[in-house]
């Protein structure tokens, strides 16, 4: 916190200079040498007049990890809006975080440092070893931002007013045509998120997270302090029963890595499901294959917000591709699957 404050001041003073330098700062990836650590990123921000898009994102990660804040946001998908409250704080060197869904059945996630516990009305509570709550804020923003440069261009676009505050817009644009773009509006004062939008290649707004309230405090919230004494479920052991599946995905957009492969039974699905999960640093894609005796069926697409569900049936298998990727990409993935 001590070294962070002068940085805030600097950010404030240097804001008028941003607009002239914006053209030069894009694409940020090409011109700026990525700093190795967060501390270096901040010293870099002090020497360079206008922070690059990458520095904005590093500052976002840093702010989300170090500030005490109490904020609310609304996730808008199609015609539905889900309101959440999000608290974060540092207490006795421990990072405390709480995200809770405010409408409908209870859905809460609590994080104490590297343990995240999820409480959902339709499941028994469970904990996972993770240093970020995975949803609905993209987990990538909490972690290794530089890694995303392999697949996304970071572009500092300009400023606007969000939540009554001056905001810097940073766009994550896919280097190929296989992904959606992420637009982030960051608070110039604190570096925190004010708005996130998922934009299709055609410029269509698919999904957005709009913050409705932001309060940054000196001390962490009283509610968070109580979490330290709460009894939380034991973290699930990371036993990854990796299996070799009798089929493979032969095409994926560049940058996607296999996260896990498994065979399991899913509630409400009669047959055993075989699944692979991939991640490009920002987006998760799951491929599900299950045996079916139904007639072959052409691909159908269901879309909720940015999440696409593409389903097709061929060779006696029903193939479903799920993820925040364009339907065309999902279809190419589904078509590339070959069975042994």
């Amino acid at each position, binding site marked *: 916190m001590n070294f962070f404050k002068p940085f805030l001041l600097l950010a404030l003073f240097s804001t008028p200079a941003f607009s002239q330098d914006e053209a030069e700062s894009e694409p940020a990836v090409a011109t700026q040498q990525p700093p190795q650590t967060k501390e270096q990123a901040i010293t870099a921000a002090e020497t360079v007049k206008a922070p690059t898009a990458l520095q904005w994102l590093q500052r976002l990660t840093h702010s989300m990890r170090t500030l005490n804040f109490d904020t609310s946001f609304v996730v808008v*998908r*199609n015609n*539905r809006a889900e309101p959440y409250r999000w608290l974060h704080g540092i207490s006795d060197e421990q990072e405390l975080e709480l995200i809770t869904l405010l409408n409908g*059945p209870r859905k809460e*996630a609590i994080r104490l440092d*590297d343990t*995240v516990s*999820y409480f959902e*009305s*339709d*499941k028994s509570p469970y904990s*996972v*070893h*993770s*240093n*970020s709550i*995975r*949803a609905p804020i993209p*987990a990538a923003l909490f*972690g290794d931002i530089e890694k995303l440069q392999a697949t996304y261009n970071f572009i500092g676009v300009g400023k606007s007013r969000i939540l009554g505050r001056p905001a810097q817009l940073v766009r994550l644009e896919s280097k190929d045509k296989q992904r959606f773009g992420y637009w982030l509006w960051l608070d110039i004062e604190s570096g925190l998120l004010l708005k996130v939008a998922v934009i299709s290649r055609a410029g269509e707004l698919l999904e957005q997270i709009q913050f409705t309230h932001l309060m940054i405090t000196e001390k962490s919230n009283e509610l968070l302090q109580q979490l330290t004494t709460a009894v939380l479920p034991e973290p*699930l052991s*990371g036993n*990854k029963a*990796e299996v*070799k*599946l009798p089929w*493979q*995905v*032969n095409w994926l957009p560049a940058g996607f*890595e*296999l*996260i*896990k*492969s498994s065979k399991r039974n*899913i509630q*409400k*699905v*009669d047959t055993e*499901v075989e*699944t692979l*999960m991939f*991640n490009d640093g920002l987006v*998760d894609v*799951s491929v*599900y294959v*299950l045996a079916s*005796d*139904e007639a072959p069926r052409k691909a*159908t*697409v*269901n*879309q*909720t*917000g940015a*999440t696409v*569900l593409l*389903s097709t049936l061929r060779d006696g298998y029903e193939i*479903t591709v*799920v*993820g925040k990727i364009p339907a065309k990409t999902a279809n190419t993935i589904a078509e590339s699957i070959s069975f042994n």
Partner: protein
Amino acid sequence: MSENKFEAISALLDDNNVEQSLLNEVKDDDKLGDTWNRYHLIGDIMRGDSADFINTELANDIAVAIAAEPTVLAPVSRPTFTQRAKAKVIQLSKPVGQFAIAASAAGLMVLGVQQANVSDEGQIVPAQVWQPLPMGGVADPVSYNYSTQKNVANPKQAYIEHQQRLQALLSDHNMQIKLQSDVAHESDDGIPDPLSENHE
């Protein structure tokens, strides 16, 4: 009402000097007030600008309405019995709220079963009730709570089951995202990569 009072009003209209007491009388006496209005109306008509005279009836109506309003005195600061009773109800209702959610879920389930039964008669297509295609998104999970039937021969039934499966896979996908631990993320090397031959 004496004639000279009407004359006095006339004089008032013509900007002649009158006593203050007359003004007060006109103000307080309805009849004199009417006369005042009438004289003005006559004057307006004669001058030819009667079209935009102000309807003073409205002002009268408002005055009557205000007079009819009950006078509100300073509110009582001491809580009444009903307020105290309410405060107790709030305390009680907190734990009850959780049961209320369960009850509403049960209600939805019962509704769902009824829909499924109707569909067997072929009268109503249940798919239209929660049809999520093409862009409406996947319907709420609660819509899918009714019992699964093994009747795959019926294409409508097959369609419903397919949508149910999609919903289940979507929630599984979302669950798997949460289950990812960072440890697994970093140690990708240990996982056999089926793409290694073809992709890179």
